[in-house]
């Protein structure tokens, strides 16, 4: 192509904007590395996986963050497992099942749900949800509570973005399916969902990021015990909660250790992104 001069300069502007967007991540990574460096140098990274437990400010400090990695993974996975089908169902409801007025009302509701501060979710979880769970299995503040609250928080993201993905399917696809006499559900499962899968996948990715990174609400309902959860009713601590709980009062090595949990979180995200990237590519080529 031979774009005109304005086009070329606009294109460079776009590149600059994208570079800024990308650079933010780089800056954050550098920032985390700098802050975590003292702890990575001594005691060294292996301590973070091989120590007995997490007592970063005791006289013989211990820095095992593996249980928190497990807690983060468990809470995120649980929330994704719960929120993905619910979110997609909500999107399908909006698009194909609800009468128009109800659909737009339902969408408003999801938008509001997306804007409720995490403190409010956390507070609600602490006052309403955990006592309910406690009646089954004390202490109530548990992995389950974290999963439920997280699901609730990421559900609007999945639902709203999936809904727009569904909305942008060319009408001719649906008409084609209807012309074949397919039922509504078969049209959805056979035509609509596959056609929108890219948009839905990116919605799920965004939601997964949110679930991994969520702090306040999880902190208030998860119980925050540093342990590998042996049941869904066991209290867990996530990496984010670890930072939020202790950072305000951490000094020196303890503080640096908390930034290592931040780095660890980033590693988790990179693994997740790479994995999903790989799956998507497999699907395209396979």
């Amino acid at each position: 192509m031979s774009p005109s001069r304005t086009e070329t300069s606009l294109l460079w502007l776009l590149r600059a904007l994208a570079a800024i967007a990308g650079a933010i991540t780089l800056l954050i990574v550098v920032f985390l590395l700098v802050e975590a460096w003292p702890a990575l140098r001594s005691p060294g990274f292996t301590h973070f996986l091989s120590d007995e437990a997490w007592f970063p400010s005791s006289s013989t400090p211990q820095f095992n963050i593996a249980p928190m990695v497990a807690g983060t993974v468990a809470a995120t996975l649980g929330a994704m497992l719960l929120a993905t089908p619910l979110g997609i169902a909500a999107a399908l409801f909006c698009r194909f099942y609800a009468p128009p007025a109800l659909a737009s009302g339902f969408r408003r509701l999801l938008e509001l749900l997306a804007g409720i501060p995490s403190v409010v979710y956390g507070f609600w979880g602490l006052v309403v949800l955990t006592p309910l769970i406690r009646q089954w299995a004390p202490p109530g503040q548990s992995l389950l509570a974290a999963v439920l609250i997280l699901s609730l928080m990421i559900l609007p993201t999945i639902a709203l973005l999936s809904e727009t993905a569904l909305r942008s399917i060319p009408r001719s696809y649906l008409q084609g399916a209807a012309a074949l006499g397919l039922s509504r559900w078969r049209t959805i499962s056979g035509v609509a969902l596959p056609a929108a899968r890219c948009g839905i996948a990116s919605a799920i990715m965004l939601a997964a990021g949110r679930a991994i990174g969520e702090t306040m609400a999880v902190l208030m309902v998860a119980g925050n015990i540093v342990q590998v959860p042996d049941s869904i009713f066991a209290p867990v601590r996530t990496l984010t909660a670890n930072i939020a709980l202790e950072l305000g009062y951490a000094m020196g090595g303890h503080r640096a250790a908390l930034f290592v949990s931040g780095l660890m979180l980033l590693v988790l995200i990179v693994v997740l992104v790479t994995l999903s990237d790989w799956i998507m590519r497999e699907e395209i080529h396979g």
Partner: protein
Amino acid sequence: MIKKILKACCVVAISLLLVGCSGEQQEGAAADGLIGQLIVTGSSTIAPLAGEIAKRFEQEHPGTRIDVQSGGSSRGIADVRRGTADIGMVSRQLNPDEIDLVAYPIARDGVAVILHRDNPLQALSEDQIVAIYTGSVTRWSEIGGADAPITVVNKAEGRSTLELFLSHFKLRNEDIRPSVIIGDNQQGIRTVAADPNAIGYVSIGTAAFEVTRGTPIKALPMDAVEATLESVRNGSFPLSRPLHLVTLPEAGAGAGAARAESAALIQAFIEYAASSQVDDLTEAQYFVPLAH
């Protein structure tokens, strides 16, 4: 259309700039010569109190501005050391490696062990509390309560209430077997209020206030001393901590007029915060004023 959007962007940008430039033009009409701005950061426990003190201070000294920020005791110390804050708020004693700073107490706070209101036990001995927290007692029935598992609520590592609790009971954090770990004070109260089998420890003033407004908790006496603000005030309650403002010692010794001005302001604010003029504010935030 593009033009319209661009125009709108320009208008927004310019107005933002204008707003940005128009601030900070406070003419120093202060009679007492105190002008300038202070940044106070640190403990989220002290922040509400410091915010109220700052407001009153500003009223009495027009031309001054005290910006109170929250974020935790260690943040206060780090910010003061780095120079991004003038004064830090620290809700504990300074550690040995923090002697480069000077701490000024402005109030006291006690820590009380709390149970759910429906728990039949009215008092626990220190040994019992230690036994519960170290996991050698795991059911209330073992110490004369209901037949239910104990939910041990502990505070997160580094929190000053935790440190106070540990040092009083001569425990190490490693020995504690918690069921739930919490962060802020209110979370502790909510957790215990929602669980009839829970035991936790929180700031006394807060606990007393919550009891009066009907939250289902009760504060246990310690060494037979009632857990009240009064017993903290008269020094009989064993578990109490000072709330500090910290600053660099050379804050008064800097060179240059501006430096001296801000040093005077820092000194004035700290003295004001420790004076009896703010006792009512301290009490309103459920802390114990210093004995003057």
